[in-house]
């Protein structure tokens, strides 16, 4: 089925469709209309840029969750060569909501992690919509310790609505699994990069997201809890989610300003899914630049910087 965008993008998609029709029609005329069409295209591009520049935080939430967006596996498959995927936590099971393994990224031998939401319905169910269970966090932990053992940097792609909230997750110690990851990642003796590519959902994201540098795609979000949850808890209704999204300061640009994340990665106009190749290329460039920097640091300096990075987060009223 043809992708028709999100509800608020209707006008953009409608215009694109008409423009395409116009071009086709024009080609059947004898008169050359290319100058006129070019002028229309130019004006449209200007409007389109303005439109996507002025998205509300809530609209970015919707884009960040768009099922068409490239997933962790898209980035990993494209950017990491000679991949060997690894499975399981050696305790309970394998969690398909996170993939991980080893491979080569532009000359660097790395350990990669990626939270996976899945694509079609069947795939999404198999991956539990990206909600990780404790075995997923423990699988990630195992791979990170492996990275440390062999001195390889870790690249972690973040994309989850949150950690799994159900009974099973509780029975297997969800808070212990996440807490352990936070502690170990804060002191892991290899560089760690995290890239929020879609939804950075709460502790579920942070559980594989503690890193030397946090990179974030322009339309990705990172938040303390889903805006809907906030709306429900504070105002007893789902209707005020857009307001919560606004209040949270959850967009990449706002979080950069707050000093929470380190870099905003530009997306193709209209979002990563409109031109996945370009989005992946941008992410690759950013990873390369940051890996070059991080791997050049002495490990003790790196760890001290990492500690201070989190140490300094927080606004104190003195």
């Amino acid at each position, binding site marked *: 089925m043809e992708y028709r965008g999100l509800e608020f993008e209707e006008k953009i998609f409608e215009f694109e469709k008409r423009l395409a029709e116009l071009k086709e029609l024009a080609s059947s005329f004898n008169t050359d209309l290319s100058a006129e069409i070019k002028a229309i295209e130019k004006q449209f591009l200007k409007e389109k840029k303005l439109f996507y520049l002025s998205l509300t935080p809530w609209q970015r939430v919707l884009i960040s969750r768009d099922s068409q967006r490239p997933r962790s596996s898209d980035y990993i498959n494209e950017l990491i060569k000679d991949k060997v995927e690894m499975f399981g936590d050696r305790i309970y099971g394998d969690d398909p909501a996170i993939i991980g393994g080893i491979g080569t990224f532009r000359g660097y031998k790395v350990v990669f992690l990626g939270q996976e939401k899945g694509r079609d319905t069947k795939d999404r169910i198999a991956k539990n919509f990206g909600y990780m269970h404790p075995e997923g966090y423990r699988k990630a932990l195992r791979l990170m310790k492996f990275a440390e053992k062999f001195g390889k940097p870790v690249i972690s792609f973040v994309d989850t609505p949150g*950690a799994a909230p159900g009974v099973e997750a509780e029975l297997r110690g969800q*808070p212990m699994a996440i*807490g352990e990851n*936070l502690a170990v990642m804060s002191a892991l003796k290899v560089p760690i990069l995290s890239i929020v590519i879609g939804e950075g959902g709460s502790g579920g994201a942070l559980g594989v997201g503690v890193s030397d540098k946090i990179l974030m795609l322009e339309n990705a979000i*990172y938040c*303390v809890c889903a805006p809907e949850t906030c709306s429900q808890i504070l105002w007893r209704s789902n209707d005020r989610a857009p307001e919560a999204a606004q209040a949270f300061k959850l967009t990449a640009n706002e979080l950069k300003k707050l000093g929470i994340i380190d870099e905003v990665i530009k997306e193709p106009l209209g979002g990563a899914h409109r031109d996945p190749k370009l989005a992946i290329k941008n992410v690759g460039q950013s990873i390369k630049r940051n890996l070059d920097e991080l791997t050049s640091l002495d490990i003790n300096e790196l760890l001290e910087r990492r500690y201070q990075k989190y*140490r300094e987060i927080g606004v104190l*009223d003195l």
Partner: protein
Amino acid sequence: MNSEVKNSICPNCSAEATKSELELTYKVCPKCDYHYPMASDERIKMIIDNGTFTEYDADLESSNPLNFPEYDEKLAKDKMLTGLKEAVVTGEGKINGYPTAFGVTDYRFRMGSMASVFGEKIVRCIERAIEKRFPVIIFSSSGGGARMQEGMLSLMQMAKTSAACMKLKEEGLLYIVVLASQSFAGVMASFASLGHIIIAEPGTRVGFTGERGRSSIRQELPEGFQTAEFMIERGMLDMVVHRKDLKKTLTDLLKFFS
């Protein structure tokens, strides 16, 4: 206040107890052993040797860094009701003579949730303990996790406090966590699950997702789900200790590691 003169009705067995009765039992129902939630000052009084407590960072105060709607009012209300400036009190003192750094989260202030100042106080407490070579004991009664109104500033306190716990452990210092009444979400998934030893008081509710967060998923809950007694059977805790024995248990542990 008038309410303090009134008798308490046990939420578990409905038995009535006078204030002085509950003072004697450290707020444990004399009839059914229900452990009433304890405010931070009550906890300090109960655990720390008389006259040895020195509070850390008492002046650090929560503000509204994101200008979140209605947060100023909520903070003002909790500050007024509790006399606290944040949901955690930290400091140092002695437990039967053993010096220790100490933190206690207070459920009455924003449900004991963690935000900027909260995280900062925990970390400063741990860093002081490292300087002074003290063990650290933290009591968590946090029903709330990362406090919504400070957004990502709150969430990142999970990483910040966990990093400090890691540092403490790397320094070879003892870290004990005591879960009391309730401990959930971002607090439980960070410093409150990282103790060398994790103790819970009887009946404490422990988990990641609380009832409210679970309301959307319809799942049959096992008997005793998310209680301390259930969690210890699952291997998540080291011990469940009755409040009347808690100070002795802590003393024994401090003695072993001293």
